[in-house]
């Protein structure tokens, strides 16, 4: 079976990303986004792109990227999840980038890889591999993730002329920010506008599908990173919070819940890693790996965040403690790129289990 471990290079990458997140993000200013939404030009995003160059991990060197791959991008996403970082890595550096890579696009890919521009695939954020529809008619597409602050919009559209993938500059249309449940990955309504046709027909469909597959596969790593952070933060909290003259983490009921959560988080890590590896290897088992990882990691992230809120007691309910940021990201990510229910629905036929 494919390697599920981390390489030394990946460990080093993790260290760098974690350091950057710790230097450039603090929960207080992240929470501030809920009152004053900001575009992406944050220090954290600058650091990821300019200092670490991780926006180009999926992009071959000859296209201006780093020539690494999904395994490495997954490590970056674990750290982004850990920090609930408000950066467009998944939407721009993974999904949109993968769409353009699939098309062999060369004009924009280098600047995406450098993080000089960001792009978003314009589909409702709950769209999933194998189950999505291009924009039709004139209604804005919503809710779209990654579009707020993006420079480029990749818009799948269908009309009488068939299916097209269009590239529209953000400046040429309207991106209306929506009040989002998770403001660290804000959503928008994108008004359709015509732009450059990147591809048509099956080629365009394959590109969109590849983007969604990469997104779903690697979102699992972000969810795993988030879940693991919730577990660690909570373990730390219950070790130090004293009630009844003892750390609340000495109460067996709490210990057992955290033991169960440890199991879940550990398994989520294996599932996410397998999905990243299957994507990297273009494994025939890729679709299975993605649905397993999405169905499992989505729920684990929500459960970990919910347990974090509960076990932080009243503090977990406050705006001041960062726990709520994790809950909102986890719950929204559970819906993103297909809910667990939908991924279970998709998985059965792949493994010859049907109703």
């Amino acid at each position, binding site marked *: 079976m494919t390697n599920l471990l981390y390489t030394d290079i990946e460990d080093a990458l993790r260290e760098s990303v974690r350091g950057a997140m710790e230097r450039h993000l603090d929960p207080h200013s992240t929470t501030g986004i809920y009152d004053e939404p900001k575009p992406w030009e944050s220090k954290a995003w600058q650091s990821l792109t300019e200092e670490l160059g991780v926006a180009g991990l999926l992009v071959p060197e000859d296209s201006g990227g780093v020539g690494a791959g999904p395994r490495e991008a997954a490590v970056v996403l674990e750290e982004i999840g850990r920090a609930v970082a408000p950066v467009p890595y998944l939407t721009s550096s993974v999904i949109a980038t993968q769409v353009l890579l699939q098309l062999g696009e060369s004009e924009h890919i280098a600047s995406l890889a450098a993080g000089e521009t960001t792009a978003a695939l314009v589909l409702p954020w709950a769209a999933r591999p194998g189950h999505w529809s291009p924009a039709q008619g004139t209604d804005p597409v919503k809710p779209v993730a990654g579009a707020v602050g993006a420079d480029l919009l990749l818009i799948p559209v269908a009309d009488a002329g068939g299916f097209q993938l269009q590239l529209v500059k953000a400046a040429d249309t309207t991106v209306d920010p929506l009040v989002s*449940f998770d*403001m660290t990955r804000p959503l928008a309504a994108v008004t359709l506008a015509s732009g450059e046709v990147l591809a048509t027909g099956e080629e365009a469909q394959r590109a969109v599908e590849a983007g969604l597959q990469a997104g779903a596969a690697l979102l699992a790593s972000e969810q795993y990173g988030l879940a693991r952070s919730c577990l660690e933060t909570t373990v730390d909290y219950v070790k130090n919070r*004293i*009630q009844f003259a003892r750390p609340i983490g000495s109460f067996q009921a709490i210990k057992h819940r955290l033991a169960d959560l440890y199991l879940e988080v550990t398994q989520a890590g294996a599932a996410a890693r397998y999905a990243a590896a299957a994507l990297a290897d273009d494994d025939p088992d890729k679709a299975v790996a993605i649905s397993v990882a999405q169905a499992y990691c989505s729920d684990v992230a929500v459960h970990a965040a*919910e347990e974090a809120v509960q076990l932080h007691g*009243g503090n977990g309910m406050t705006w001041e403690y960062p726990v709520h940021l994790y809950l909102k990201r986890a719950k929204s990510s559970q819906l993103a790129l297909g809910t667990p229910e939908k991924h279970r629905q998709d998985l059965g036929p792949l493994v010859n289990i049907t109703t």
Partner: protein
Amino acid sequence: MSDPKTMLRQRVDELLATHDPATVSTTEFLGARFDAGLAWVHFPEGHGGLGLPQEYNDLVETWMDEAGAPGPERSRNGIGLGMVAPTIMAIGTKEQQEKYLRPLYTCEEIWCQLFSEPGAGSDLAAVATKAVLSGDTWTVDGQKVWTSGAHHAKRAILVARTDIEVPKHAGLTYFLVDMEDPGIEVRPLRQITGEAEFNEVFLNGVTIPDADRVGETGEGWRVATTTLNNERVAIGSGADREAGHIGVLAEKWRKNPAIRSEAAYHELMHWWIEAEVTRLTGERLRQQLEVGQPGPEGSAMKLAFATQAQAITGLAIELDPDHGLLYDDWTMHRPDSTDFLGRDVGFRYLRAKGNSLEGGSSEILRNVVAERVLGLPAEQRLDKGIPFKDVPR
């Protein structure tokens, strides 16, 4: 003497005749209702009641409703009406009863509760706010938290530590506090929902006359328990089928075919059934109370309510992802009361997280059920018999 029902009906008719709810102000009407002994008929005469059995209250409420007469605003003064009034009636002095019950009932004076502290959450008896007596006056210093309505409350019930040399439960005293005291500062406590439904309350040199102590010095834990038991009892009232979160979701399901799926159907029905059996359990508990046989189910039912509220709102978000990804409003408001169902699904999901914490966390309630209902051995108390000042905190 005529039978209570006839007598009550007479009194209600008289009240309505002399104070037409359509013309007098709510405050005036409630004052008159209090004076007529129709506020809480089981309270003594002169204190808003007539010394009748408690079950006659429902009757009076029904008649008042039929007549379109107003009752006190339970949503604004829930703590006053539900917790303070019974406590003052049971344990307060005659002076306290005379001074506080009437304006409480008319809602001229709103009450809040100063119990929880940053260091005393599930361990409520770990209160560290200090009260020192000098002459006839107590001086209070400390910090309270999770105080709802503190910013428009006129009065508060307070538990403070009056002796650190004795074990924690023994050193507490219970007070009635004037929230207009210059030593009180109320700061909004913003929550996960974006709202600031609660407050932090800082007490710096707040003074309380000894006449506003409830119960003896050092008896505060017992008095607070009386107060909190009244909080729990409130749960035992019957409710209609599909009341609460499940009803909201079921209605959405009925109106919105797009959100339906077979898998979601079974999940929805699972929670529909859970909500229904909890409702039936509550109804049975209500029937037991009616015949004077209260059961121990209340604490366990609160566990069920919290679990269901959280699961059902979570499911509601998942059933309609395009909608669940959005939120109605993150602006910080300071609402006058809590409405678990009033806003959009995202708010309901976040607010429901508090259901397993406020009013006794689910962990504490499981202890209560295990120890008091099932008789399982108590947790080892590491602070037992140790002076409060020597207990690790």
